[in-house]
């Protein structure tokens, strides 16, 4: 599950999450469960998403986030929006 980041986008995403919640850089992997690894609740996760949207200049509607629990999952959503 803990594969290394496969893209630049995933690396940037992991760096952003690590910095936001005070985790060591490089301690997160794309397949990690966001809530469990970061120890955050769903509201904190949504706040992080807003930062991700600002960083990447995309908007992800809430309904697309249902069932997404990993960094790789978010990366995929961002990638789709970036086209």
């Amino acid at each position, binding site marked *: 599950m803990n594969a290394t980041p496969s893209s630049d986008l995933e690396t940037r995403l992991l760096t952003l999450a690590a910095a936001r919640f005070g985790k060591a850089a490089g301690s997160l992997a794309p397949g990690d*469960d966001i809530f469990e690894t970061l120890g*955050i*609740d*769903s*509201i904190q996760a*949504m*706040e992080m998403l*807003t930062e991700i949207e600002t960083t990447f200049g995309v908007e992800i509607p*809430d309904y697309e986030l249902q069932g997404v629990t990993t960094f790789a999952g978010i990366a995929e959503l961002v990638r789709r929006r970036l086209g």
Partner: protein
Amino acid sequence: MQTATPSQAAPSQPAAPRDPRAYEMLDATRYACVGEMLRDALVQFKTHTAFTELDRRRVVHRLSYLDVKRAVDRLARRLEDAGIGAGDRVAIVMTNQARYPIAATAAFFRGAIVVPIDYKLTPKEREALLAHAKPRALVTEYPLFAPHAAGALEAVPLVLVSEAPEHARLGHAQRWGALDGADAPGVSDAPPTFVPRAREDVATIVYSSGTGGAPKGCMLPHRAYLAQYTALTAMFPIVAGDRYFSILPTNHAIDFMCGFLGPLCGGAMVVHQRTLRPEFLTATMKSERVTHMAVVPLLLTAFERAIREKLDALPGWQRTAVDALMQVNERLTERRPNRLVSRTLLRPIHEAFGGELRVLFCGGAFVEQERAELFNRLGLPVAIGYGLTEASTVATVNDLRPFRGDSVGRAVEGVSLRIVDADASGVGEVQLHGPTLMLGYLDDAEQTRAAFTEDGWLRTGDLGYLDASHHLHLVGRSKNMIVTRGGKNVYPEDIEGAFASVACEELAVFAEGYLWQTRGELVGERLIVVARLKAGASEVDRRRFQESLHAANQRLADYKRVHALLVTEESFPRTASMKIKRGELATLLRGTHATAETVHFGEPVEAVR
């Protein structure tokens, strides 16, 4: 069935001194059904704004009551043309947006029964509830419609889909223009025929559980809504000029009342926001100057975090000043909230929430007292209530005269409450009676019988006691069900099903507060899995068990995950049909294990809506 012995009974709240603003609202006692009341409201308040919808900071639309009436008439006519009338069921699967109340009102106009279905469920789970409810029509929106497999909704004769892209494949479903009138060709624009209903007729079927197990569709009569409207608005009037921010799902009984029927019958405005990111929630509260909203406890936590950050950022002297002002505010608003005083004293904090907030409703036993008290000291009144779908939502609520953070309030007007089979300290099962009770569960005589006592009182399954002033205090549950901080009902039996592949002899899932009842500590109640490994299990066995448990847990929706593990050597008592005797097992575990023996997995995580 044994006859219950009421140990304590509480009169319902004396009708609050009627707020003069209440006279601007429609008088629900004059109506026989919800549809009639809504029909009057759409005419009475026609020039007012009914709905404002935002997507982040952009205003998507503002609709007047007249706009709403036109959209309702068009849809009601369409339902009529499809042969939908008295007693037919119309299901709605939608996020919070104006089309939801429009669809529900149109169904009520036709005398139909509205079946709100949780849009957060997976398509398969929604299909299971639709199969149970057997609606003649389904109204939904494209992003929720699209994930259903082709043909999955074919059993529903009329499926209307809003917001479908131009070339979307809709199968047998039809487009619903809703607001722009861009319906499928051939839709009539003749006025609809209004179909009246009686107070005892079913108005809605609301599912109080939906995933796995037997679906429980609470049949709520028109009188339940009319009675609830009268009781709640006597305490908390919501009238023209008020702005209700609807963020709890409208399919949930709370928002159906507070974010739809309540504001619409008073001429108020309902605000919808397409995203639930806290940042945009507070931005919306500011831009729309929100006056009322209902929240789940988890959101109060997020708001508190924002307030604390604001307070912590203040220089020391200013922080001291705010602390002093909080004390002054508390003293000045001791008997009842005074928004002007609080807003003047604590302007920066109030402005962060728009500065107009009159009340935040927060449901359930899971509001932490300290948190509610902090909000109150800041002059942001949190009205803590308690209720369940079986009783049309609100059974008790704090009237804020004065604010009480330690209780879920007194029974609302018309609702009788009693504590049955109380122990020495006065704790027993909370039971309810009155016009807001459901008629029963749809097509389930057995569960309906189990839900009521012989003399017709609703068994809530919640344990509590009444204090001298008839305020209810909840202490635990007599049923093995958990209500999460996000307001979701979780049934341990569902989760056990998902754990079938876990490598152990047997396991059972409990609400932690059911295993160990701890008065006043319901907050953050978690699910705990109790497992028995085979005798003489090796280290490898144990590791395999833990890994399989972890993997199965990860596959569950976040709010259903267990948070703690207790390994026991006790064999589970079972019935002849091999069902776990939960009550006996709980007693056994209570006697042989302490809470300290549980291994916690980490912080609870759950979705807000």
